[in-house]
């Protein structure tokens, strides 16, 4: 039983990271119906940037005083988010915007090309080997304070939640309550009518990419703090996990992406623990295929305008 609970906790942490990336897929798909294939690789770039900032710029270590540590981590998150958001907007401008009226598969193919470009840029800069840092967050079991030792929750895992949840709340507020968020929803529903109503469609789409990119950057930082490792092709597998999450929850649906990510996090953790990590990828893809074939609208249903 303890083992199952432990697996659930690991799955929850996985799922929360997936959620940040899955939101990027679902936002973009919701608004321009593009599977942004390069998004997983943007997450990978985010983790590379975070690793560079932590190890080379800020020299974070276990010896850094806690207050300073928290401040610097927040700064690193902010910086990484800005950088990945900028990269994502640039990609949209170069690779997707010119293809907005092309046949639907053209931007998807362009995105696949972009994915390989990002991977190889990382390979060029960081080399083919895994890049890792020493863990500098305390690894003590937080639950031992209340007398539970058979199940462990580490500070890293709490940290994943501490970064992810506020971002999810902020995103929900932004899309649901602000003027810009309303413009995004309008554009997703019908870009032409939205344009006629005075929404700057290009700007709104760029904003969507900005938000998705920023979330991928935050996920990259969390990946480094939680798993302490990244590699140039991390984004492919991770991105497909996140995309599967988005599809599982109902693509275009923000809360769906989070629910899907949490479910997929559990699937990953249980497959890793009870089957074999070798099979996890195949299982994730199996889930993806089954969902697409039998319930393409996902758990919570698609929130897409019905455009053929």
């Amino acid at each position, binding site marked *: 039983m303890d083992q199952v609970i432990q697996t659930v906790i690991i799955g929850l942490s996985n799922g929360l990271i997936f959620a940040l990336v899955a939101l990027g897929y679902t936002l973009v798909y919701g608004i321009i*119906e*593009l*599977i942004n294939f390069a998004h997983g690789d943007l997450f990978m770039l985010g983790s590379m940037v975070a690793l560079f900032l932590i190890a080379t710029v800020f020299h974070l270590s276990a010896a850094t005083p806690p207050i300073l540590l928290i401040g610097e981590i927040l700064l690193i998150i902010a910086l990484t988010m800005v950088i990945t958001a900028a990269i994502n907007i640039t990609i949209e401008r*170069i*690779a997707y915007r*010119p*293809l907005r*009226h*092309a*046949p*639907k*598969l*053209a*931007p*998807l*193919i*362009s995105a*696949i*090309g*972009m*994915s*390989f*470009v990002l*991977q*190889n*840029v990382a*390979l*060029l800069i960081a080399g*083919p080997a895994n890049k890792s840092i020493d863990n500098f967050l305390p690894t003590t079991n937080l639950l031992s304070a209340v007398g539970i030792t058979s199940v462990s929750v580490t500070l890293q895992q709490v940290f994943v939640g501490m970064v992810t949840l506020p971002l999810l709340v902020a995103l929900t507020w932004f899309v649901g309550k602000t003027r810009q968020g309303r413009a995004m929803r309008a554009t997703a529903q019908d*870009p*032409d009518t939205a344009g006629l109503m005075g929404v700057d469609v290009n700007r709104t789409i760029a904003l969507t990419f900005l938000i998705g990119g920023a979330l991928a950057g935050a996920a990259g930082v969390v990946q480094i703090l939680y798993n302490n490792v990244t590699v140039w092709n991390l984004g*492919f597998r991770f991105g*497909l996990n996140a*995309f599967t999450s988005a*599809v599982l929850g109902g693509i275009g649906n923000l809360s769906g992406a989070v629910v899907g990510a949490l479910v997929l996090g559990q699937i990953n953790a249980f497959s890793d623990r009870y089957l*074999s990590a*070798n*099979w996890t*990828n*195949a299982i994730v*893809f*199996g889930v*993806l*295929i089954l969902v*697409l*074939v039998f319930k*393409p609208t996902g758990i919570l249903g698609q929130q897409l305008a019905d*455009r*053929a």
Partner: protein
Amino acid sequence: MTGATESPKYGTGLTGWAAHVGEVLSGLPAAYRRELGSNRRRAIVLTILAILAVTYPILNRFFLQGFSRNVFPLPLPDDTVVTFMMIFGIMAIGLNIVAGFAGLLDLGYVAFYALGAYTAAFLASPHFGSVSFVVLANVANGFPGIHLPFWIIVPLAVLVAGTFGALLGAPTLRLRGDYLAIVTLGFGEIVPVVFRNMADVTFNIGLGPISIVADHLNLTGGPLGINPIDAPFLPFLNIRFNASAGFAPVYLGMLLLVVGILVARNLERSRIGRAWMAIREDELAAEMMGVNTLRTKLLAFALGASFAGVAGSLQSSYLGATTSDFFQFSTSILVLIMVILGGIGNIWGVLLGAIALTYVDKTFLPYLGQQIQAIAPSFPNPAQFNFLFFGLTLVVMMRFRPEGFLPNRQRAAELTVHGLIAAEIARGEEVGVDNLGMAPPGQDEVAGDARAAETVDESEKE
């Protein structure tokens, strides 16, 4: 599925398909004559190209290597590279059936390549050492393992890959284009994972009196894969077409490629080919005209997959080994780039794409790498970053020349003008003037839209 509108000659279902494919196959000689005889200029160009292709390996061996070292600035591809040009040529032509003719984006094409390779590995190697089954192969009777000749393995690989293509396609071809792409991608990832992980299989299936038991059976060789695999062998001439056989395998590849070209060419011009085109342009309209869209798409999927099966069985028999590492997503994309670069929908274009990209990947970039390493050893070797160039190629091609360098005229029109109009109409927009500047006049399919555009044009002028 009404026989009257669908296919008057053959029944529906598998036998109908088989009959149709049989007809295509029996039409090959005629296709060959037509290919040469359709017009004089084309016949001359094709003949010259064919002579060049046939003589190249021999010239290369005895003459051109020295020439390329001393006179020509770039290295010429060697026998291995040319063999891979043939293998990728077969794959590109197969993917072109799926993506070019029928307009379905298959991102997991490598799965069928893997299935072909492992078919050869299972049926012509000492891998299943506990049995001995030697039929017509260049192996002594009683030698451990299953050994079938390559000439039987190729049709079997066609069958295996085609069957899996149909199995994957049957539930998924209803999906929208981008979802289908992702599903095929998933399939392309699952197949190598299965081959990698099935090295230690234990099961006990009881079916009444029959019980199938496996106790730690090494089914697929795991991460190490399977080797050695028997080389294709030509009995009377005693030629083994393996990597150490010089240019012999080039001719084997060329033979299979030519058959592939003729089959694809024949399919393109058949009733099925026209149905594919109709579906690609407008699925709904095609269905209204009596095309059984699901069956036709399924046929494209299965036939395209069977080409990769042939390529896979050739590759593993030629190399004498196979592992799941050969079959990665990047290979699917490499073949896709060949198709897009050369000209999606045009067999000669995708063939050119396959030859050019194989050359760049296996000869030019390594050569460039050597040159750079000689001058600046710390500079990154471009051969390791081949997908940086290929990725950029995809982005640039989509942006500036989606129809490829040797475009299929009809496909090019769809990608530029038809596609634009379709997109606009699907989005419920009025068809804008600027978008129609390139509309070719007098084409039936666009006539209605063109009239609409003219109206807009005039009203804007006023």
